[in-house]
């Protein structure tokens, strides 16, 4: 039996698959958030240097990692759409952008909340903070460019080019703490080992998976809306049970 690897590459088939997957990821995100926050706030010990204020790390670090990861995934989908001329890839890129922008904003905000008690300042113009701010501008620019072009295919392609050009910023954010003399903490999770208490590691991993599951759920939910909007004149959309009630 031959497997059709591209069965879900069409908006019509992917719509159903996304609809089935959203509840799984949403429930997983809720459980992982509850578990992660419990471990992070109640089980993990007090930090030797920072006291209790460090616990915002369990939100700040996962969303920061994901803000960069989502940008790369978005640029990847955009590149796929540009190279292979597939509509669904560009729709996925468009669906990822608002979630990525939100995570970047939360990263900057929680970073400021963490910086005030520990560094004494809400904001510093060091390399990592500045490049993360640039990432937020890149997300907003992607959304703005896509929104300001009426023809959806031209919008997809133009925004894809912008996303690919902007992806050079992500390595800069990641390596900024090595390249520049910066106040932001360096890498704790290295290939040579992790210098953190085991409960903190568990909390961090759980929160990271929680944010990842949330991002997947939100993106799949958003791409369903985008598919409906872009494919509204096709027969399969008009035949959808959820729309049949509206159209009667």
């Amino acid at each position: 039996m031959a497997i059709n690897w591209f069965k879900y590459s069409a908006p019509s088939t992917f719509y159903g698959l996304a609809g089935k997957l959203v509840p799984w990821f949403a429930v997983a995100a809720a459980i992982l958030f509850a578990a992660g926050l419990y471990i992070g706030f109640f089980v993990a010990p007090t930090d030797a240097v920072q006291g209790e204020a460090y616990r915002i790390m369990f939100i700040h670090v996962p969303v920061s990692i994901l803000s960069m990861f989502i940008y790369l995934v978005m640029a990847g989908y955009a590149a796929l759409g540009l190279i292979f001329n597939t509509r669904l890839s560009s729709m996925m890129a468009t669906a990822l952008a608002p979630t990525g922008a939100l995570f970047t904003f939360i990263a900057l905000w929680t970073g400021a909340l963490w910086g005030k008690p520990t560094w004494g300042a809400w904001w510093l113009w060091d390399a990592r903070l500045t490049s993360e701010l640039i990432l937020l501008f890149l997300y907003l620019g992607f959304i703005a460019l896509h929104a300001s072009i009426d023809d959806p295919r031209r919008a997809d392609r133009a925004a894809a080019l912008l996303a690919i050009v902007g992806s050079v910023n992500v390595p800069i954010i990641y390596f900024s703490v090595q390249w520049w003399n910066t106040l932001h903490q360096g890498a704790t999770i290295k290939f040579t080992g992790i210098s953190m208490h085991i409960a903190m590691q568990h909390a961090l991993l759980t929160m990271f998976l929680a944010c990842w599951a949330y991002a997947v759920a939100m993106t799949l939910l958003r791409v369903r809306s985008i598919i409906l909007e872009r494919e509204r004149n096709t027969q399969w959309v008009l035949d959808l049970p959820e729309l049949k009630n509206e159209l009667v």
Partner: protein
Amino acid sequence: MKKLSLMSLLLLVIRRDLVLAMRRRADALTTLIFFVMVVSLFPLGVGPEPEMLRKMASGVVWVAALLSSMLSLGRMFSADYQDGTLEQMLLAPQSLSVLVLGKMLAHWMASGLPLVLLAPVLGLQFGLPPQSLGILMLGLLLGTPVLSMIGAVGAALTLGLRGGGVLVSLLVLPLCIPVLIFGAGAVEAASSGMNYASHLLLLAALMVSALVLTPWVTAQALRISME
């Protein structure tokens, strides 16, 4: 038809764009006047204390140069887009990247180079010492081409859109921030006696990478916008 070498093609495009710019001198001059006005607004806003002005001089001049470059970007492709020349350029058998490079260089000569020449005068207004003025000028000389080149990518992506100049600025400014940081940083380093060569070398590296990469990216962006 005579076969054109790449260099003569480049020179042809540069000469054409410069002649067209000379016919509309007002466009380039208004950008220059905007530059001078923005730089003059800062002392009026923050107060005339000389020490503070000297500290912020390089940043102010650089930000004003950035904003003036953003303003003039719309002119790069819009005239050719409206009268159909751009479509002919896309259809031409010659390399579109070379044509675009010519347009970028001509744009820089008409918009960026005057900023470089005027910057020392404005630096004097802020009380910068002569050595800092030299580094400011050198930094702008290396940085303004990068602004023109990255701006060309933005201008090509937003060809004919109703968003106007603001959308191009929103797209291009985040990508131009490294140029600003290194350019202004070079002058800061020089005034505090530290080594400024690394900043200028990084600026030069940015210029060379932009020179290599942006013409092709802009050509792709033009093909996307002109479907």
